[in-house]
């Protein structure tokens, strides 16, 4: 155990990560002292201190809203810290803007990539780092350098490909190449594996290892304990804007980190009994969806979900899962046959919208609560009626019965422990977890026969995650059918009774959670069905070169 209380402000707090490698006198590649930042009344960072030695990988772990990203934004010159100082290789450095961060040798790979979609890889790489007023020489030089870099670090990318034609894994490489092209020696990655298959993630970590051996310093921000344990040398834990501990990874355990993140003991597994599946509620046959660009997003999906079971759909974001939920939820048209409780539902025309789906007993917790599930500027009570606003109980004659809606809201808020328990608060002023509770309360309390759930715990704190998982399992135990879509493989593995893997608009097959593992699912997510044999990363990449999907949901 090597916990250090950073609140004492002793800069020498972080332990030397690689004994024997570097002497005690080595200067940290990056050192933060007493960084504080508040947005209005919200203190996002409070007296943060970190030291990261050159040639190491340092993890920063914390829940959503713990202040990790604010800290990194300060490092990259997006925000100015209210107090504190930044030292790069021992030298105090002011970072007023991104330009300063770049010249200090900091490169950042954001969670949402900062790429111009209709530009080529080359154009994206040179953007902002051109050599002169004319483009041609800059591009020629970049082409040569890019080749060198990709050979050196196994970062192969087609320089003339347009970003919009590349898979997310490739796009991430472009981001890394951008940083290397700018000669970054400190690389910060914000939640880099959210969009990757396990194989791609492994490959990414091999690349990072390579960079580390070259002497680059890497900061990895994540909420995934496993990544921290497997890849980092040292790790800092953040909670509510404060750095609660910095520790050598080898000296800690996932349970300990989780407790440090949340501030109490947490259950890392979902408690549930075996499913008692009954008659099929949802039967999907040969479902196809073509998007507005004419691209086929679903290419003949067939599946069943029965009473009392959770079918989990695993897959990398953008492989058709969103479209599956949307067409079943009535947000999009499709072709094929869909039966609910044995009766077909319309997939096109005027009787195919979210309203008619709800009447058929389909509840829907959408993937993106801020864009779809809630109206952020509406009060909590207005959101509780959302989608069910034509319910006779909510209306009196031609007018809406606001008193009735508010009374219903109070009840739901109490039952689902939404905080603050204020029906007159606008949705945007609730935390992510409480926003999601409002959506879940609304959809679950309608007692649907079939519940569609997309990314139920994205951007939700651990406490709320436990609660939401319990609610979903409880609904299953009442004999409801649940279709769960999540890009978090852990969530799929722990919640589902059956797992189907989706790739490029098709189902690659189904597995039972007890009979499969992450490696197998990972290969299926990359479109490889022969999961017995040996497969290398190149094969995975070839398969993932052109995944389809709605880019806004790829996060």
């Amino acid at each position: 155990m090597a916990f250090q209380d950073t609140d004492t402000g002793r800069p020498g707090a972080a332990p030397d990560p690689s004994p024997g490698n570097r002497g005690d006198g080595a200067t940290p590649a990056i050192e933060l002292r007493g960084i504080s930042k508040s947005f209005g009344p919200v203190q996002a960072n409070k007296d943060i201190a970190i030291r990261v030695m050159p040639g190491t990988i340092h993890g920063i772990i914390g829940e959503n809203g713990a202040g990790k990203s604010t800290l990194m934004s300060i490092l990259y010159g997006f925000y100015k810290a209210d107090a504190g100082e930044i030292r790069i290789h021992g030298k105090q450095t002011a970072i007023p803007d991104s330009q300063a961060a770049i010249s200090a040798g900091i490169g950042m790979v954001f969670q949402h990539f900062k790429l111009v979609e209709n530009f080529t890889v080359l154009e994206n790489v040179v953007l902002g780092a051109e050599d002169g007023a004319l483009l041609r020489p800059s591009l020629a030089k970049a082409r040569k350098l890019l080749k060198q870099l990709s050979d050196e670090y196994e970062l192969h990318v087609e320089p003339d490909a347009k970003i919009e034609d590349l898979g997310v894994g490739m796009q991430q490489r472009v981001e890394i190449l951008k940083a290397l092209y700018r000669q970054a020696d400190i690389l910060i990655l914000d939640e880099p594996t959210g969009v990757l298959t396990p194989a791609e993630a492994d490959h990414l970590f091999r690349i990072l290892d390579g960079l580390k051996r070259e002497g680059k310093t890497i900061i990895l921000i994540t909420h995934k304990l496993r990544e921290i344990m497997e890849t980092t040398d040292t790790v800092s834990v953040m909670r509510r804007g404060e750095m609660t501990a910095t520790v050598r990874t080898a000296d800690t355990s996932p349970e300990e980190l989780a407790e440090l993140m949340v501030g109490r003991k947490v259950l890392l597994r979902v408690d549930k009994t075996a499913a008692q599946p009954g008659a099929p509620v949802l039967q999907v046959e040969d479902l196809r969806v073509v998007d507005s660009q004419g691209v086929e997003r679903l290419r003949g999906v067939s599946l069943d979900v029965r009473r009392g079971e959770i079918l989990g759909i695993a897959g990398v974001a953008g492989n058709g899962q969103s479209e599956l939920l949307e067409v079943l939820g009535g947000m999009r048209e499709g072709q094929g046959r869909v039966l609910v409780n044995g009766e077909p539902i319309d997939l096109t025309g005027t009787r195919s919208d979210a309203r008619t789906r709800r009447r058929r007993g389909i509840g829907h917790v959408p993937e993106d609560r801020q864009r779809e599930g809630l109206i952020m500027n509406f009060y909590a009570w207005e959101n509780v009626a959302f989608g069910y606003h034509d319910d006779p109980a909510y209306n009196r004659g031609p007018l809406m019965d606001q008193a009735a809606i508010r009374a219903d809201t109070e009840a739901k808020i109490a039952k689902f422990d939404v905080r603050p328990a204020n029906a007159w608060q606008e949705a945007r002023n609730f935390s992510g977890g409480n926003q999601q509770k409002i959506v879940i309360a609304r959809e679950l309390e309608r007692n649907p026969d079939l519940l569609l759930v997309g990314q139920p715990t994205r951007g939700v704190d651990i406490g709320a995650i436990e609660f939401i998982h319990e609610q979903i399992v409880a609904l299953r135990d009442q004999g409801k059918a649940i279709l769960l879509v999540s890009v978090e493989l852990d969530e799929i593995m722990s919640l589902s009774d059956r797992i189907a893997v989706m790739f490029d608009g098709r189902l690659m097959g189904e597995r039972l959670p007890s009979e499969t593992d992450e490696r197998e699912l990972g290969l299926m997510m990359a479109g490889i069905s022969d999961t017995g044999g040996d497969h290398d990363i190149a094969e995975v990449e070839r398969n993932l070169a052109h995944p389809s999907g709605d880019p806004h949901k790829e996060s």
Partner: protein
Amino acid sequence: MDKMPKWADVLLIPLLNLVLALVVSGLVVVLIGQDPFEAMAIMVRGAVGSTYGWGYTLYYATNFIFTGLAVAVAFHAQLFNIGGEGQAQLGSLGVALVCLFVPWPHWSLALAAAIAGGALFGAAWAAIPAYLQAKRGSHIVITTIMFNFIASALLVYLLISSLKAPGMAPETARFPEATRLPFAQDVFAAIGIDWSRSPLNVSFLVGLAACWLVWLLIWRTRLGYEIRAYGQSEPAARYAGISQVKIVMVTMLISGALAGLMGINAVMGEQQRLLQDNVLGAGFVGIAVSLMGRGHPVGVLLAAILFGALYQGGAELEFETSVPREMIVVIQALVILFTGALDNMVRDPVSRMFLRWGRRKPTPQPAGD
């Protein structure tokens, strides 16, 4: 940052914006060699210093209530209807047709029919841009602008051909006497109050009723709920089963109908005949009125009266000094600029100020990033 009290948002900031717009307008008056304070005094006296002034002020305000509500309703669905001008012109045509070609026994029947006619024609003129937006994705701002030009060409054509009255001027015949709406002076005379002659007529009451109905629509009905939800987030509307085509169409039809209703005031109430341009920019004033009124019918009503006063005051100003009427257009532009586009110029410092006050009694808040 939500530390700003509601009254600051709905009252203080619009007021500060207005003051800024007036200060800059004052500078413009100085620029053309006039005394801004004297100009202001003339305008205030002219607008609200007599029953005559009030009559004209409220007459203009009635026009702006209709066009302001039209813009406001569309704004709630995130649609920017710049076509109020053309829709009001077509609405005027509808009113004129009702008055010209049906022999009405009493003004009240004629008014009811004219309301229907004006609303119908206004709505029809908004229908095509609405359809193109809903189905073809043609940007409604551009199409409604084009429809303004087309509307004025259409009126020009009708008034030199089929609807033209004998004589030189491109205008229709006078409406029958039975369609004349009671003026304010008639109404007040009936209860023994002396009110100067002005074009203020019962349409003003229709305007007030429209304010109330729009309030009811937007904040109390399902349709209003759907309109507001659609305006806030299109994907969310789809998620809730709210049809995009329906909302865009219905909202624009209501918006166009409201703009068209302006015709009962301007054509039936005042001119008693259709001219080439009865609207005279009121459709555009609606944009300023709606922005000032923050899209709320009460706000629209107050802003409409303010602009009514501005128009009446501006007319007096032109009469008494050498400041041309276009001064009003400048003031109107500045109000749109400051309340609509430069809003954050005032809002940011004000909210910072409230934040500083608010910090004295700190409230615990979850950290967010």
